[in-house]
């Protein structure tokens, strides 16, 4: 907790001729009306986030809400107009260029929406590119690149050129390339938005699988709430450059901070998001349970079991019974009915 891998403090990014007017002493201030009047776009404003080592942090919002701008600030690809970006407690925009280059060469990786594969290099050349830039010797970097290519399941296609691959395969190359340097922090800016829905699911599974193996810190951008739900530990919802709310999918669904978040989460697949804990009712000492479910199990995982049983299930947390779920509570969630308990 003491040392988050990445943190943004009061970050704003403004575009427009009069942008400087709204920044004093490195701090942004201004209302939307004032900005509009001065012809300034606040692509990102008032952003404070802390990303912990090993978590998967998803930034979600509609197109134009400022996600790419924020992630470009986080990766120090553009300097923020105000605020600071701290990578392991060091301000990325104040360090010497050489230090930043070193951090990027060894600790960061990025996957791009349109793949950004170099057309003149083969798959092998593309994956080995970041290593080449570091000056690694050819046999060594190619061995490393082959390993990465195998990891993303593209073995046998090393000598193809990018244009000879399908979209999904191209993005696999992008992923392999971004992982080749063994980064701690992995940025993915809408990596699957350019892909077909079926391929997209497959690629999400791929990311989950890799994350399971590699345990990176992930900053993942998407405009698709379902995708966010599948991948995220925590989700930040953005609107007009601001972060509306940060929380787990369950928190967003259960306790939306604004109407915007509420509207956004309304059609979310609740059964896949909510856990037993969030729909349980107080335990009944005298009850006769049909079985037990874990407090943090998702409803979708145990719904069938409960549906088939006559009696309620006990919800257990660390061996203790903390509540009960019955058939009705599950059906409420499945058909989207506000249950009496939840409303209370």
């Amino acid at each position: 907790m003491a040392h988050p891998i990445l943190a943004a403090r009061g970050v704003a990014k403004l575009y427009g001729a009069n942008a400087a007017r709204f920044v004093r002493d490195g701090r942004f201030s201004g209302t939307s009306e004032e900005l509009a009047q001065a012809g300034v776009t606040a692509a990102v404003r008032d952003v404070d986030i802390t990303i912990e080592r090993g978590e998967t942090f998803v930034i979600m919002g509609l197109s134009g809400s400022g996600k790419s701008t924020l992630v470009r600030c986080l990766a120090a690809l553009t300097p923020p107009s105000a605020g600071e970006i701290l990578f392991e407690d060091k301000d990325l925009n104040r360090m010497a260029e050489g230090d930043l280059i070193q951090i990027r060469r060894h600790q960061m990786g990025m996957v791009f929406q349109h793949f950004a594969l170099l057309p003149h290099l083969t798959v092998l050349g593309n994956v080995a590119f970041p290593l080449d830039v570091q000056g690694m010797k050819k046999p060594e970097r190619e061995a490393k690149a082959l390993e990465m290519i195998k990891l993303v399941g593209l073995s046998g296609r090393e000598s193809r050129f990018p244009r000879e691959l399908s979209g999904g395969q191209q993005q696999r190359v992008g992923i392999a390339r971004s992982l080749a340097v063994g980064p701690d922090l992995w940025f993915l800016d809408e990596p699957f938005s350019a892909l077909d829905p079926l391929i997209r699911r497959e690629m999400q599974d791929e990311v989950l699988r890799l994350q399971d193996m590699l345990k990176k810190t992930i900053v993942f951008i998407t405009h698709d709430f379902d995708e966010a739900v599948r991948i995220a530990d925590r989700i930040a919802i953005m609107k007009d450059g601001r972060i509306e709310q940060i929380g787990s999918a369950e928190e967003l669904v259960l306790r939306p901070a604004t109407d915007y978040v509420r509207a956004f989460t309304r059609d979310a697949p609740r059964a896949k998001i909510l856990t037993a804990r969030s729909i349980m009712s107080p335990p009944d000492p005298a009850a006769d349970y049909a079985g037990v479910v874990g407090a943090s199990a998702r409803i979708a995982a145990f719904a069938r079991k409960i549906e088939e049983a006559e009696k309620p299930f006990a919800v257990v947390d660390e061996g203790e019974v903390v509540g009960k779920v019955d058939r009705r509570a599950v059906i409420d969630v499945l058909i989207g009915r506000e249950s009496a308990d939840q409303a209370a």
Partner: protein
Amino acid sequence: MSLAEARPASPAVFSRIAPGRLMWIAVLIATIVLVMLPANALPAWAWKYPLAWQVPFGSWISAFMKWLMESASFGFFTVHDFTRAIAWTLDLPLQFAKSVFATGFIQGQGSDAVVILPAIPWFAMIVLSVAAGYAVGGLALGLQMGFGLAYLAVFGQWDSAMVTLASVLVASLFGAAGGLLVGLACVRWRWLERIVSPLLDVAQTMPVFAYLLPMLILFGFGPVSAMVATVIYALPPMVRVTIVAIRAVPEEIRSLGLMTGCTRRQITWKMLVPSALPALMVGVNQVIMLSLNVVIIASMIGAGGLGWDVLTALRSLNIGKGLEAGLAITVLAVLLDRFAQALAVRSGAAVQGQSTGRRNILIGGLGLGLALWAAAAISQPLAVYPEAWKLSTGAFFSDIVSWINVNFFSTLEAIRTGVLLNVLIPVKRFMLALPWPWVVAVIALAGYRLGGWRLALTVGLMALFPVVVGLWPTTMITVYLTVVSVVLSALIGIPIGIASAQRPKLWRVVEAVVDTLQTLPSFVYLIPIVMLFRVGDFTALIAIVLYAVAPAIRYTAHGVARVSPHLVEAGAMNGCTRGQILKRIRLPLALPEILLGVNQTIMLALSMLVITALVGTRDLGQETYSALAKADVGRGLVAGLCVAFIGMVADRLISAAAGRMRARMGVEA
């Protein structure tokens, strides 16, 4: 508006005509009235700009150059030393290339000269080219290279062609590398682009003769001056292409560079340049073709080669020899163009599989070629193409031309006189009768209507320049020839473009012709026409039209074919006939593109016009050409600037008009 209000009696007529159009009708009427006015109706200075008001830019430039070369000094060494040192440095690669391709490496002087290594003999060169052609563009290109070079050898053009080739290769190398570097610098520093861009405009519209002259003074008479002039002429498109191509590299690729921790240099050379390579190769192709064009012209200041052969043949009216050399230039141009294009295509699609096979052939060909070269070095007489195997078509061509002249002289002469009397001379008289203040004012007005005060000021000042340097009449003669040939090109080119836009088969033929027309160096056009029509304005007109018609055809065809099929279908569903679809939908939508084609036609016409000075026109081209002969730098540059400004005025106005039209139709530029 004010006119319409002032005459309420006929509102129906005037309210239907846009006020802008009304103004232009008034301008037209005023122009006609002005031309018909008797000579004493306006003060004399309106027609003849007084000598006392002239600004002697020419003398200033000449004096400056004289000072520069005779007195200016950097302290330890003079400017003269400096430029000669540059010339000496540039001469090294040029001499090397010439030794390789044409003369061989020679030690010693005069009769003691010993050939250390002969130039690549013709058979080795053919083997090398076929292998290179095959590796780059497949069997077809390999065969073309082989036959083309064989032609040069068989028809006795080998030596001159190789001298030309060596110059072109060296100039292209400098032009492409220089253009790339300047372009990259412009992308990196925007302020630099703002300075370079207008310079490129001038360099592209300035007649070649105009800057041959300063080169001669700076670098001395000889191949180096010719090469520097060539490089300057061929560089602008490469700079432009580089800027566009590098900017077009997706932002994500740049970000990738930063994210992988590339240094600036790594981003430029490992990412931007390679991923923009296919687009850059298009620029290289242009550099090669422009270099060839200028190397031919520059032969008159000592570049030698095929251009020199044509020039001497033209001067001595040796028809057959001129045509032979002209054909050799054509062959060389086509080969260079095909090869460069194949290279561009190939850099875009490095197809796997085939390439290993091709690489083996390339390596084999190279090996064989070098072995043959070595063999020729050992037994030198082998290397020379045997006299007995040479064919000459010179006499044959001479016969054809004299046959045509004997049998069709009266017909040709009638055409020539007819056009001269009915078109050329009246237009010329009209142009010369225009008072300069009026012309400048109308140009500024057009600038104002199309692009506001800035444009008005720019074009107005450019139009004023020929007046204050005292070259107004000469400029008007240039304008007259340009106008007539551009109108004629448009009348020929636009209908051909329209006709071929909707007929793919016809387009294939037209495109092949247009491509060839555009590959040929401008010089070549003059040869056959001079033989049929002798020297003069009519000859110039035909040469210009032939050279300049290509963009009118190409842009029209593109514009018409590119109109969105949805709009065409919508028209068809509304019951339009084919003619109506063309007239009401395709043509109006294609108009901006057609205008840009005409713009290109004007540029080509101007560059050809200058060359036609060689056949005795009396315009600005002649002014620069004779300044070249008299080594009068100031006069040559000033006349050259006049030509450049004509081109730039036309370009600014037409581009603004096309831009406005596009904006109004909501089409992306």
